[in-house]
């Protein structure tokens, strides 16, 4: 049997061909088409790369740090997935992460910019598959930079082995530090722009928050960095490696990855069910129920419950 075009692409990508890698990533970004075939094949070969998430507020220095880290890792084939937001109005995007990395990242690195394409949480829908492709063709580590996020966008933590949160001096105080959300999912903290006043204060606030937190077997380290000067980057990489080792030794790595795959299957089921949901609401029973909701005879919640109960194949309607 002669090799298919997809065989050839994977083979070239595994040999380090950038263009083949670029094509495969485009394929997983585009639903339908060859996306599922690429994903299927990548999945069987993946599972080796360390996946590091880099997140934080807009402009905190995520891209600059990510580029420096890729170089500091000393890895043969590091890869970066850099996510920036799509315009909710037009779907267009200006992807500006690459320009912050290119100059110092080294020519062995691979960088791909991705737009969120309507996905919330600071990632794009295709991120898990894109990571899978990079992993499968031999990249390691895979660094995933999220779009700039606020306090609640934590989906990166479910997509990475190690999550690094980048903050800057003056980002908040001890009250912000104790709010729920982003800071809770950090495995490693970088206080970047440490050339600015009160970087130590920022570190102190984080340490205080960590003091109050639950006693675990991993206390997230806090590293001061000046990414533009490449300062603190080695130390940051050491902490990331230490976390990787911790995950391996404690068995948490397997659990995290298992959970990650579970979440992905759940997401896919949800996506698939959406079609069924529309079927229900567009059915006769659906429009009847909707009418009753509009006439304020039943609440949206009870109408949904009744529709769900009557459409569940395991419990067919009695009438």
């Amino acid at each position: 049997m002669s090799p298919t075009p997809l065989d050839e692409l994977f083979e070239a990508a595994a040999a380090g061909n950038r263009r083949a890698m670029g094509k495969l990533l485009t394929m997983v970004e585009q639903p339908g088409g060859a996306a599922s075939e690429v994903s299927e094949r990548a999945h069987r070969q993946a599972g080796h790369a360390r996946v590091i998430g880099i997140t934080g507020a807009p402009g905190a220095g995520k891209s600059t740090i990510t580029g420096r880290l890729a170089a500091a890792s000393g890895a043969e084939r590091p890869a970066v997935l850099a996510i920036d937001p799509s315009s909710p109005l037009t779907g267009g995007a200006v992807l500006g992460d690459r320009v912050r990395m290119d100059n110092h990242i080294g020519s062995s690195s691979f960088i791909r910019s991705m737009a969120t394409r309507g996905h919330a949480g600071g990632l794009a829908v295709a991120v898990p598959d894109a990571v899978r492709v990079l992993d499968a063709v031999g990249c390691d580590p895979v660094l995933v930079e999220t779009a700039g996020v606020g306090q609640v966008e934590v989906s990166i933590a479910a997509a990475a082995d190690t999550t690094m949160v980048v903050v800057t001096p003056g980002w908040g105080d001890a009250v912000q530090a104790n709010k729920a959300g982003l800071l809770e999912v950090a495995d490693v903290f970088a206080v970047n722009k440490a050339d600015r006043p009160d970087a130590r204060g920022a570190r102190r606030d984080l340490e205080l928050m960590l003091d109050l937190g639950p006693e675990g077997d991993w206390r997230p380290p806090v590293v001061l960095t000046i990414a533009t000067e490449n300062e603190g980057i080695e130390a940051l990489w050491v902490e990331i490696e230490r976390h990787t080792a911790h995950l391996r030794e404690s068995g948490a790595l397997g659990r995290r990855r298992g959970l990650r795959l579970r979440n992905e299957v759940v997401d896919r089921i949800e996506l698939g069910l959406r079609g069924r949901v529309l079927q229900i609401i567009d059915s006769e029973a659906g429009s009847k129920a909707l009418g009753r909701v509009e006439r304020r005879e039943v609440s949206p919640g009870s109408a949904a419950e009744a529709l769900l109960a009557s459409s569940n194949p395991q419990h067919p309607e009695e009438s």
Partner: protein
Amino acid sequence: MSGISSCPAPAHPHEAPIRVVLAKLGLDGHDRGLKVVARTLRDAGIEVIYLGLRQTTDSIVAACEQEDADVIGLSMHNAGHLTLAPRMVKAARDAALDVPVVIGGIVPAEDVATLISAGVAAVLGPGASAAQVVSTVKAAALQAAGR
């Protein structure tokens, strides 16, 4: 790989957006126009990979490969277009990249034909409207996809 690169072009918004790499070559520091163009293309639903100033033909080729770009957009204001633009076209061809090169900035009218015959897909100048910028880039992407 031929089966892949001949994928049909995105024809309507539910398909993949066009991806454009925008850059300036060498020491030319006029990046205002490039920023305007980036915003204009974004507002037309295009994904712009913004490389900005001080790029080389090599760095642009590398970005195009990794980003799987559909179009290279260069902005030129330092009178170097007659050497630099053909050099970009050649660098892309040498890398077996079938990516059209579109140019804007300061290009005297009498140079346009020379550039086109050197393989540049289109040339725009000062005062180009947003609609012109968008349609030029889209046309270049479509034409390349049809090849």
